[in-house]
């Protein structure tokens, strides 16, 4: 029993790392643009399909497939922001208009995927076959890879936001747009790239999980819902909160599978959401700006 628990905790961390990736994209957009992106899950889905087509049509290695998915998702994000959100910004109704627009994009992309790529679920092979045995535990290499990649990307991303010229400008814009403008920062350019980066993070999560879950037009719905829980758990706009919340939710879900049964997984996540909203609505770290 103890061994199963430990194994599930490890699985939970793997799942949680993906929640953290998806949620950090959401929280990044909230923190800078003060909007929720309901199309985030579909950008995740697009990432999964690009990986699939990179394998089947181009026959490239996983590394190039992932890079391609990230690149295209980044471009799609830039394009969506420039085309659909930019014209709404600074107009009355900004508190609702992005919700409507991104919900529309989400519905469009789901149905586009359904029409263009079919309803058959698609699978991609593991990037690395085999399992590692360590002290009696068996862990698939794929899962270890997921953990390593997420950890690396999160650390690199944090360094980028903290230290780079773009990162400083991004945080400045999030905290005081007018003051940032006076320093020469073009807020609209920052918003565009923020959207692109957020989409790229979602696509990365999708490609890493694609071998475990299947690729289909609706694959983005569940991660988006979970990411919302994570973001509320950690505090809207908080990066640390998204990471911690992601790992916490992943672990909780995995443990609930052992202790209850897999059908109870979502019940547990949403119960956690309700409890957090009830007792600590601002999340662990509180609502924050970047």
């Amino acid at each position, binding site marked *: 029993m103890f061994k199963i628990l430990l194994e599930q905790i490890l699985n939970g961390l793997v799942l949680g790392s993906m929640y953290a990736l998806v949620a950090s994209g959401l929280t990044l957009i909230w923190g800078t643009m003060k909007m929720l992106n309901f199309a985030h899950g579909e950008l995740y889905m697009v990432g999964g399909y690009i990986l699939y087509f990179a394998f089947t049509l181009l026959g490239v290695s996983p590394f190039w497939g992932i890079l391609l998915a990230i690149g295209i998702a980044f471009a799609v994000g830039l394009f969506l922001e420039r085309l659909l959100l930019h014209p709404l910004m600074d107009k009355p109704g900004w508190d609702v208009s992005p919700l409507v627009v991104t919900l529309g994009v989400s519905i469009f992309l789901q149905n586009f995927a359904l029409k263009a790529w079919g309803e058959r679920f698609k699978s991609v092979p593991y990037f690395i076959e085999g399992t590692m045995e360590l002290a009696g535990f068996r862990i698939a290499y794929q899962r270890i890879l997921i953990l390593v990649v997420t950890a690396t990307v999160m650390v690199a991303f944090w360094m980028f936001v903290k230290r780079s*010229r773009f990162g*400083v*400008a991004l*945080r*400045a814009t999030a*905290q*005081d747009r*007018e*003051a*940032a*403008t*006076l*320093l*020469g*920062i*073009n*807020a609209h350019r920052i918003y565009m790239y923020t959207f692109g980066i957020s989409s790229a993070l979602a696509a990365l999560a999708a490609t890493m999980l694609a071998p475990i879950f299947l690729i289909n037009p609706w694959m983005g719905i569940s991660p988006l819902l979970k990411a919302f829980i994570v973001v509320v758990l950690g505090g809207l706009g908080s990066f640390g909160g998204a990471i911690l919340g992601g790992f916490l939710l992943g672990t909780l879900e995995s443990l609930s599978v052992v202790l209850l049964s897999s059908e109870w997984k979502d019940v547990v996540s949403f119960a956690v959401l309700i409890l957090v909203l009830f007792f600590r609505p601002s999340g662990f770290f509180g609502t*924050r*700006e*970047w």
Partner: protein
Amino acid sequence: MLEISNIDVFYGDAQALWNISLRVARGEIVSLLGGNGAGKSTTLRTISGILKPRRGEVSLSGVRLDRIPPHQIISHGLAHVPEGRRLFPNMTVMENLLAGTYLLSAWKGRMAAVEEMGKIFPVLKERRNQLAGTLSGGEQQMCAIARALVSRPRILLLDEPSLGLAPVIVERIFEVIQKINREGVTVLLVEQNAHIALQIAHRGYVIETGRVVLEGAADSLLDSKYVKQAYLGL
């Protein structure tokens, strides 16, 4: 150097500035005086492009500032310390200064620029890793000025640097403004505190309800009956 001619500025339908003209020559300190809501900050915000005039022009060494987007204005050598400091509260002092070096030309020499600010404002060096939101009012003002200076501007706009600060701190800040000016930076200073503003300025303008009502050399303004009555409480 900076020339504003006949600008009308509106907030929506409400007119805030009426036919305002003023000029600042290279090397000068010019004070813009006036009470609450007179249009001082509006004038500065129009110069730095946040607001666009409906009529008239703003030009800096021949460049029409009212025709370029606000984020490009600093690259022409004009930096603006906004009213209320407007620091980035969740960023450290160091990060605030780095944000000031966003211009590519300034980013390359950012460490030297930050170092230099540490000499002008030793307290900022002490507190470089502290969040800007936790600084005292005077420290915040110094940080805001330093953040504008690291872009190495030719002209600096200062919006009420004395606001809410203890007299000792105000004096210290005005000393620094004079020092910066002696080192070659032109200054346009907005103040309610007419006394101290005219002490360091070469020339001044007084505006009221969006119109220039008085202008002249700083000493003559200090001596004028109008300024004495309205702003110095004499």
